[in-house]
């Protein structure tokens, strides 16, 4: 899938970049070992990042394709889908999609997008790629653990992918896999072998996350170059650092929930099961609580949405500053709000459970905590706006996606304030309003952050530039597509349409909006097809793109001081020392409109601020 990438060498050869410690002649077919350790079981953080990225792209195509399938069903509930029979086989019954398979589609779409694309694909790619490069380290603290992290993810991917093809179908209880539905194969066929594979895959995935997370945290704490204090770190690193802490503290709880669910499914325990009569039979389980599972799940599940969005926030801050040619506004407030979000994200989980029968007093507490988290998020938005104000903006593709990110984050974030209000959540819980909300604020926004990151750091990854014109096309198509899909979805949600419905045609209450649903489906499928522009651009540019320079965006951070394609160890000579914060853009008195972090104050006397004079 992602492992093989033999042509990087050609790129390097073609450009003639210096790559210390590498003799290309050693890499021919007769040296299996060398090939394997370079292209497959690599311990180089940059290589592992590319492995995560390409696996993530693979999963994003699968996840997007699944959504197009169920949007076909929702847009045209009466149409025959017989033409999909060559692809879906027995899941098309008499020209109709099997309703259980529909549920499997939404379940797998959610699982794939949240975990495999936006957690592993986003944080896995950029934490790996940028942490050592931006803090000035030769590699991760443990290259071996880092390699294991990818290969556990790969194993987890193989298991999850295999589950798509088994006879009883993949897991179908929703991506939140609430028991008892997920615990009882009698309840839905997907809760048989499909759910077992789902749980095994997630267990592997969590191991991968923990191996990666421990590494990111250790690296940021211990391996910063000389002068790189925590208050000189780019915001990207702060975001990756806090994301890793969040993951390290919350993923084990999901692991425990999965483990208990495995016990309930296979060994007859009753952690989540009680008083159940199903398929003509009363089950012996008593005393368990399905709500306990929800608490455990959302204890990860809520930090998870910040695990998804914080790396995007970090990268967007960096890209906005670079391309507005301005320091990011309120650097310390940005770090403070990241810290605030990280802390609060652990104590808001039960806002997913207002109407589950949880004690209403608990609901009140979580409502208060939830709405507090809107404050640091608002601060971030204002600071991004202030960063653009009186800038000198270059619209690179990465910049377009970063501006798009801010727009989508606002649009999706604001409705969270309504959903966090327990009294309003009674009506809106599990409707399309929720679907629209989280697809904007964590789905699309995080995707925009991912694209921004790919377009921005592509030159450093592959030594070539992506095509800008195709990038513009990709951006405008996607930006419009996202709004066309998710704005009308709010209307459908306000009208109370429940999510995970195969069709609404059975209800008078949900008889309107067949037209809007068709519209949403058309927009979603076009936006999905538009992503192939990106995929073409990505792979084409790896081999045929315009050659990059060392620092194509005139950026200040350390990664741009490396060779066009950094080799093992990242810097050919000594690791550069850092003298200043990462956002000295357009400093008055400076010759250029950017001063790299490696330039000492003694060389910039004309632009030094009063308090910087003493550091000359």
């Amino acid at each position: 899938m992602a492992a093989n990438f033999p042509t990087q060498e050609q790129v390097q050869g073609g450009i003639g970049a210096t790559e210390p410690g590498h003799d290309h002649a050693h890499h021919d077919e007769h040296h299996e070992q060398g090939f394997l350790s370079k292209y497959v079981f690599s311990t180089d953080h940059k290589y592992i990042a590319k492995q995560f990225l390409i696996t993530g792209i693979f999963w994003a195509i699968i996840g997007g394709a699944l959504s197009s399938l169920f949007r076909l069903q929702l847009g045209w509930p009466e149409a025959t889908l017989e033409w999909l029979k060559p692809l879906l086989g027995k899941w098309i019954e008499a020209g109709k999609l099997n309703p259980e398979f529909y549920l499997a589609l939404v379940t797998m779409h959610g699982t794939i997008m949240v975990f495999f694309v936006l957690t592993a694909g986003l944080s896995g790619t950029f934490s790996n790629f940028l942490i050592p490069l931006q803090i000035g380290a030769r590699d991760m603290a443990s290259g071996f653990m880092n390699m294991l992290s990818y290969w556990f993810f790969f194993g987890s991917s193989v298991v999850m992918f295999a589950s798509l093809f088994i006879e009883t179908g993949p897991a179908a209880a929703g991506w939140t896999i609430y028991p008892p539905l997920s615990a009882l194969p009698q309840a839905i066929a997907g809760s048989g072998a499909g759910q077992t594979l789902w749980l095994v895959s997630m267990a592997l995935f969590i191991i991968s996350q923990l191996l990666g997370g421990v590494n990111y945290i250790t690296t940021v704490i211990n391996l910063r170059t000389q002068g790189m204090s925590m208050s000189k770190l780019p915001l990207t690193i702060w975001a990756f650092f806090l994301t890793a802490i969040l993951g390290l503290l919350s993923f084990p709880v999901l692991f425990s929930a999965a483990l208990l669910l495995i016990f309930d499914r296979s060994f007859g325990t009753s952690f989540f099961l009680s008083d159940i009569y199903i398929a003509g039979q009363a089950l012996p389980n008593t005393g368990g609580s399905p709500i306990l599972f929800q608490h455990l799940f959302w204890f990860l599940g809520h930090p998870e949405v910040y695990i998804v969005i914080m790396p995007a926030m970090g990268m967007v801050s960096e890209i906005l500053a670079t391309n507005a040619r301005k320091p990011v506004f309120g650097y310390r407030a940005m770090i403070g709000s990241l810290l605030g979000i990280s802390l609060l994200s652990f104590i808001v989980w039960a806002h997913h459970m207002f109407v589950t029968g949880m004690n209403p007093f608990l609901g009140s507490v979580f409502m208060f905590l939830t709405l507090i988290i809107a404050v640091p998020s608002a601060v971030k938005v204002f600071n991004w706006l202030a960063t653009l104000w009186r800038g000198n903006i270059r619209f690179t593709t990465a910049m377009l996606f970063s501006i798009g990110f801010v727009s989508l984050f606002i649009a999706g974030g604001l409705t969270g304030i309504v959903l966090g209000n327990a009294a309003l959540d009674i009506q809106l819980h599990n409707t399309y309003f929720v679907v629209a909300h989280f697809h904007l604020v964590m789905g699309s926004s995080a995707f925009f952050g991912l694209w921004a990151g790919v377009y921005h750091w592509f030159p450093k990854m592959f030594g070539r530039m992506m095509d800008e014109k195709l990038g513009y096309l990709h951006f405008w198509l996607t930006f419009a597509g996202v709004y066309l899909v998710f704005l009308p979805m709010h209307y459908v949600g306000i009208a109370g349409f429940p999510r995970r419905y195969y069709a609404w045609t059975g209800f008078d209450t949900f008889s309107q909006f067949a037209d809007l649903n068709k519209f949403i489906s058309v927009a979603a499928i076009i936006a999905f097809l538009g992503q192939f522009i990106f995929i073409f651009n990505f792979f084409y540019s790896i081999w045929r793109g315009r050659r990059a320079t060392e620092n194509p965006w005139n950026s200040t951070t350390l990664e741009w001081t490396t060779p066009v394609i950094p080799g093992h160890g990242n810097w050919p000579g000594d690791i550069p020392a850092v003298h200043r914060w990462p956002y000295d853009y357009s400093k008055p008195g400076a010759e250029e409109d950017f001063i790299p972090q490696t330039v000492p104050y003694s060389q910039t006397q004309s632009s030094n601020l009063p308090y910087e004079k003493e550091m000359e």
Partner: protein
Amino acid sequence: MTTLSIVLVLALLLVVFGLLFRLQILTSIFSGSSNREVGVSNRVNAILFMVFLIGGGAWFAWSFVENFDRMNPPIASVHGLATDKMFWGSMAVLGVAFVLTQVLLFWYSYRYQHKDNRRAFFFPHNNKIEVIWTLIPAIVMAALVFAGWKEWTRITGPAPKDAVVLEIMGKQFNWLVRYPGRDQKLGVVNYRLIDAVNEFGFDLSDQNGVDDFTAGEIHVPKGHPVLLRIRSRDVLHSVYMPNFRVQMYAVPGMPTKFWFTPTKTTDEMRAQTGNPNFTYELACNQICGRGHFAMKMSIIVDEPDDYVAWFTKQKSFSEQNPEVLASFKQKSDKLVDKAPATPAAAAVVTPTAAKASL
């Protein structure tokens, strides 16, 4: 044949796109624009942001107004009126924030697009501004939370003592409903007693359950508090009544509840909406399996008198299923050795009892 031609057309389209793409690269190389750091496309993108703001904003406004009537399910409960007011109130506040921030975002993008002769303004931070824009959202948030919290405690507070009680049980894939009968007490049920006839798992050795009756649709009286006792017998379900703004999960092993006061009878709602077939509906709103999307039950809001009339007409479960009652009698006979079993009071519910229940 059609498949082949579709594939052929697609392939040709791809070739055309590929050629256009190459052409674009070559022209940009020959025109030298690939070497310029900031070219014409910078201006084009800046303009597109304005186009997007104005065009997108207009489309949003139009589609919102166009669909507004359809997106508000008619309200028929006391607390629903309050939460709907709060919903649109919150949305108005958020709408202002939305428009303000989006306009600034797009306007700044356009206004501060790259100019060769300009330099960005070095403005790393300003504590005063930052404190202000931390405090403003905090205050607005506090107001919204407080309003929400007050409403939430009212809605989830204890039901009035005189509330009409009924029980809704979710199962794959329909709803079962049970009323307490004349004694106003729901009898004991036990999931181990469930079978094809005794779907609720009535334990009729409990006298309270003997006059309980089940129903194929939900009847509730207008203007009177209704307490729903909710349970599930297999997986999670959610009792969702959009018109009453009611939602509560049905959880196996953990009975839940929700109370509300209906404000409009079904007939009144038919007149108001102009739809002679209007029916209040109960939907399942928590994924529960293959038939999740079809778990529907009708709800009828009656005038109190009609409700009483309906209530008195119902026959208890034990009366309709004497063999189930008999089996419990046998069991208790066996258990209590020859002790005289109390005569089953499977009486027809009297009108006075039903009135008393109101």
